[in-house]
């Protein structure tokens, strides 16, 4: 871990986020997307956030950069409480915290040239205009491996990998300390993913960036993250240093995830030990009481796991897991 001690750059404390959804005729239901999640990220560190679809990892990422409001709990970035920010101060957070999305195309206006798209944040924050802005845009594009000739072109003229470079340049142009990258490579072709991962790593070194790297691909996360947090049904179920988590996963869900990943090597793949779940896991719905994973868990012991929700607790030094039997 690269953290330098002292105060963390990002601090997430007891954050919950709910959405109202229609639960059938005239009924409203509450979807608990994020439930009581806490963690810190040190300056210069990369925290990987993994989980399956619907685990709440993307929602949490958006809450942290204040694209979504928290229902309870607090997020602090560089000493400033995110939720308390209003108006100009709320916008000023975005100078420090930026987001890179899975599909940069959806976050780039197709009618804006790349120059205009990158000039917009500079204008909004009254940083630079005209020639000064152009120089900054050129530098940001260059940092991301794109030539200045891209400036006069439109997003749809670029391939997926190039668009993601532009998306990263746009996040980078405000010189943020912290970037939330939400599945930044999962929509890209396999041969392009490594380019983007390497670029993110180079930029981190050059600009001392702090990352929250959200992904469902555990091999990519292992490659890029110093520490890894695992979410299941809106809860943080395990968090540990990357090596510790991959070598000694403590939560049965993390163990199941890791044992499910195919290895691109026929011999190792033949020896891969798969964890078996006692139920058809594709149809098991999460438990409403107790541990949400208990309905799929091969190690669940009833009635305890079905009734009492396990708290996130230390397993060893800097390794936390939310399981009664971890």
């Amino acid at each position: 871990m690269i953290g330098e001690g002292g105060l963390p750059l990002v601090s997430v404390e007891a954050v919950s986020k709910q959405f109202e959804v229609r639960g059938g005729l005239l009924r409203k239901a509450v979807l608990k997307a994020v439930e009581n999640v806490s963690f810190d990220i040190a300056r210069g560190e990369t925290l990987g956030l993994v989980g399956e679809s619907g685990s709440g990892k993307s929602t949490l990422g958006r809450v942290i950069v204040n694209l979504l409001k928290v229902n309870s709990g607090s997020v602090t970035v560089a000493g400033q409480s995110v939720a308390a920010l209003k108006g100009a101060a709320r916008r000023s957070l975005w100078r420090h915290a930026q987001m890179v999305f899975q599909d940069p195309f959806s976050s780039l206006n197709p009618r804006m040239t790349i120059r205009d798209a990158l000039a917009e944040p500079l204008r909004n924050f009254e940083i630079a205009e005209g020639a000064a802005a152009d120089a900054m845009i050129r530098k940001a594009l260059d940092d991301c491996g794109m030539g200045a000739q891209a400036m006069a072109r439109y997003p749809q003229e670029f391939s997926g990998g190039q668009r993601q470079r532009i998306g990263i340049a746009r996040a980078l142009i405000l010189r943020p300390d912290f970037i939330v990258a939400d599945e930044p490579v999962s929509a890209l072709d396999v041969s392009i993913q490594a380019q983007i991962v390497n670029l993110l790593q180079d930029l981190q070194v050059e600009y001392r960036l702090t990352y929250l790297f959200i992904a469902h691909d555990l091999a990519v996360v292992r490659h890029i993250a110093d520490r890894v947090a695992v979410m299941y049904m809106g809860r943080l179920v395990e968090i540990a240093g990357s090596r510790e988590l991959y070598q000694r996963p403590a939560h049965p869900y993390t163990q199941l995830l890791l044992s499910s990943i195919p290895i691109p090597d026929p011999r190792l793949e033949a020896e891969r030990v798969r964890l078996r779940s006692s139920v058809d896991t594709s149809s098991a719905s999460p438990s409403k009481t107790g541990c949400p994973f208990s309905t799929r868990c091969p190690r669940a012991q009833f009635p305890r796991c079905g009734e009492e929700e396990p708290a996130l607790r230390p397993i060893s030094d800097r390794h936390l897991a939310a399981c009664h039997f971890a």
Partner: protein
Amino acid sequence: MTAIDQAVTAAAPAGEPPLLSIDNLVVEFTSRQGETFRATDGVGFSINAGEVVALVGESGSGKSVTARSILKLIPHPGRIVSGKITFQGRDVMRMSRQRVRQLRGQQVGMVFQDPMASLNPVLRVGDQIGEAISLHSNGRPTGIRARVRDLLGRVGIARPAERARSYPHEFSGGMRQRAMIAMGLANNPALLIADEPTTALDVTIQDQIVELLRDLNANLGTSILLITHNLALVASLCSRVLVMYAGRIVEEAPTASIFDQPQHPYTWLLLRSIPRLDSVEGERLMAIEGQPPNPRELPPGCKFHPRCPFAIERCAVDEPPLAEIAPGHKARCWVLMKNAVQTPAVVPA
């Protein structure tokens, strides 16, 4: 002889004609501006009875177009310009539309990436599978219902009789994909074409679907053509791999050789660009430079040469043929042919 033994031995029958063979397949698309480009150019391969073969490639490589050509399912404005497709000894290209429709769903089952797009949302899952059966047989309703239950149970859906009465939206993503596989298997096809069957699924569910496909091959002897961009899936499931790039097959080999001794620079680089759970910590990923090729603007010569670190002068001018460079191992690369000893694997990174 167990079912598994049967499947393994059936994969390489001596002298028996292949289940499916494709020769020199060319598929062209014409854009609204009247511009014509080739999605596949000269694709050829075969699949033996009981074999599981992977067609690997990135988006735009022509892998899905190749798979859809087998059943003449090329979407408008694409068309098969030339080529020969032989299934069970019969010429598919010369079959009537009606005959091809019979083939589809009867001898050849198909499973696609997005089951929600292939299932009718207002029909019960069981009825849809039943329809797939009754289209190709004149069984009694009670017999068909029993067969639907059997199929759903076989693909690992718990309480199949009850679940047959559900609508697609009541199924999870993994269950929908299982239902699609059940439909693909409805009439005991000789060949199942699975186009990115796990791409939309979470990793734990993906693992279950892969195991299901493996069991189907082992127990029923169904041949499978797996179309995927995920090389890791290939390692666990397939006996032979075809790698596609820019509408061409650039490498073909048994799975073990593809992973141990990849020959084509594209395959070699691709395998080294993927982070793995067992790779060395902190090691920089080897990236393939440049962008995937645009089928509308393919370079002359070898289509991979602009991104290839091993390219020689000839690569920019002449297109190399797909040539056998070791028994059962083919690659489309001048560097390999010029001097077979100097493989990319010995060039320092």
